[in-house]
């Protein structure tokens, strides 16, 4: 097959983390709520109601646009996007058209180990639609149920230029975008719950200079499905071109269960949304002081943080990448370092054990029972060699489940600190006396015998001694023996 040139652009919608809706005071915490319990005349489109803008939603949208290095258009004009569907009670969605919040931005992300840059075409703010339910216990089959709880929740739409060139790129861009919206606190970016949604435009061309035919793919509900849908679309279009068939512009829906995209409507039938300025909302200008204030409060972003972690804490790129993906994890790590300045040692524990426990409990660090101080109480004991790494791991698991302090878990588990060297020395002597053969083996150069001896001490202490301390004592005792026996023969 000849070489193909793949071009992808993504449109992402993120629900903004406001407590109230975009143009009314209804709450936004709709997941699991009774249908139509977070509604009012404004978000149900009842006659005579008027929208009033939520200041916080605008601020979050501006913050998003600024973070994506957009040029901010301080003139705010809302437009009506007209379409007819029962999830939209007014018959139009309040959105932005020729004056979005921001234009011409960029976003940098790591794609397959390489730093890549995507141009952001526009960032605008709009309101979400309601939800339709087609099957329910009591809803007749010839009917649909409408729930307006989600209707009017503020969204930002982030549109890229067609700068992505593989399904992997698309996935990595999305991962970075989600990480960023979480970092700056504008959205929880949860794709499975629908607070982050993604549509893709994909085209395949046989020549580098010309663009192929634009196909829009919708209905992808996870990062995995974005990747798989684009992979499917790539091979479908490749096959079409190889067979000399003509591609045509269309909208296709990703069918998760069958793993295919299905054509829904030709683009030539595309709807005319009849955009016009919403006369209910006054056009206005965002004051420069507000813009300055938002700009000066932008936090450090994932890539910057990663580079700082690599430089300041001498972490590898892989280690830093894992730590910075979630801002709360990065903060957790940095709080730990304040308690004990051993970044490598702590990073290692956070990346392996902390993440493993969070994963097992399906928690994120913010909602876990472990605080940096609690983890560090434990890790300081490991650092002082009072307990072994193996014991610490099992103590940590318990701490994650119960939220108890390290000391309490250790007491509960009956683990005593075998850090008393005098006591350990006694046991070591005893082991040396009981294993003359191993001593002889060791002295004749068999290093393995030392591990056997450490094992024996651990057995007697039921694993409660620190292997490091045991090893030190053994080394001390055995070098004394060695000096009695004379220098070891080379072998």
């Amino acid at each position, binding site marked *: 097959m000849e070489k193909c040139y793949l071009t992808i652009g993504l449109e992402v919608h993120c629900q903004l983390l*406001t*407590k*109230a*809706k975009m143009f*009314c*005071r*209804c*709450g*936004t915490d709709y997941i699991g709520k*009774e*249908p*139509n*319990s977070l*509604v*009012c*005349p404004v978000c*149900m489109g*009842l006659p005579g109601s008027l929208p*009033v*803008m*939520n*200041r*916080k*939603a*605008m601020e979050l949208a501006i913050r998003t646009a600024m973070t994506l290095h957009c040029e901010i258009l301080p003139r705010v*004009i809302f437009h009506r996007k007209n379409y*007819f*569907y*029962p999830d939209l009670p007014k018959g139009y969605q309040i959105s932005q058209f020729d004056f979005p919040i921001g234009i011409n931005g960029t976003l940098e992300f790591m794609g397959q180990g390489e730093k890549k840059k995507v141009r952001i075409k526009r960032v605008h703010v709009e309101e979400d639609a309601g939800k*339709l*339910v*087609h099957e*329910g216990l*009591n*809803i*007749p*089959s*010839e*009917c*649909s*149920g*409408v*729930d*307006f709880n989600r209707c009017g929740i503020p969204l930002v739409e982030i549109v890229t230029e067609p700068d992505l060139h593989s399904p992997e790129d698309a996935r990595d861009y999305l991962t970075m975008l989600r990480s960023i919206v979480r970092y700056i606190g504008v959205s929880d970016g949860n794709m499975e719950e629908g607070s982050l949604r993604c549509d893709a435009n994909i085209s395949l061309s046989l020549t580098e200079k010309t663009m192929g035919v634009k196909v829009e793919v*919708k*209905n992808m509900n996870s990062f995995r499905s974005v990747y798989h849908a684009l992979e499917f679309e790539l091979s479908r279009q490749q096959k079409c071109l190889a067979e000399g068939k003509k591609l045509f512009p269309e*909208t296709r*829906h990703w069918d998760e269960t069958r793993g295919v995209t*299905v054509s*829904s*409507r030709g683009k030539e039938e595309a*709807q*005319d949304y*009849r955009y016009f*300025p919403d006369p209910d*909302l*006054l*056009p*206005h*200008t965002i004051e420069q002081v507000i813009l300055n204030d938002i700009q000066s409060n932008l936090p450090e972003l994932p890539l910057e943080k990663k580079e700082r972690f690599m430089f300041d804490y001498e972490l590898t790129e892989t280690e830093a990448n894992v730590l910075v993906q979630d801002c709360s994890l990065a903060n957790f790590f940095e709080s730990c370092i304040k308690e004990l300045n051993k970044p490598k040692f702590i990073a290692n524990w956070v990346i392996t054990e902390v993440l493993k426990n969070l994963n097992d409990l399906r928690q994120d660090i913010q909602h876990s029972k472990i605080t940096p101080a609690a983890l560090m109480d434990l890790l300081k004991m490991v650092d002082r060699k009072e307990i072994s790494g193996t014991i610490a791991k099992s103590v940590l698991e318990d701490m994650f489940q119960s939220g108890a302090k390290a000391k309490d878990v250790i007491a509960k588990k009956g683990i005593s600190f075998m850090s008393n060297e005098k006591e350990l020395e006694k046991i070591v002597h005893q082991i040396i006396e009981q294993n003359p053969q191993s001593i002889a083996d060791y002295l004749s150069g068999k290093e393995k015998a030392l591990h056997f001896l450490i094992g024996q001490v651990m057995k007697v202490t039921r694993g409660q001694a620190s292997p490091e301390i045991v090893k030190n004592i053994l080394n001390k005792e055995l070098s004394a023996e060695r000096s009695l026996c004379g220098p070891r023969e080379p072998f």
Partner: protein
Amino acid sequence: MSEKISLDEIKKMAQLSKLSFSQEELEQFFVDINSVVSHFDKLNQLDLSDVSPTSHISWSQPPSNPDEPREWPGRQEVFAHAPQVIDSYFIVPKVVDKQEE
């Protein structure tokens, strides 16, 4: 002279507005709408090159809401006016897009 609206464009507008008309009605609209459009020729005689488009007569700081949710007490009343409510859902005739089938 501005370009006139064709009968096909009028049919398209009707379709987008989810309205259906008889042939006679469409022909009447053809006459009416074209006379409205012709009226804009008068406006086009003015030189407006230095005037920016007006999307609203007011350009001032609009009222805005703080981000504090408030419950609206009237929802039962809305339910009472709805043609059908089941399990707190408003019931409408089945709407499944071709794409969702």
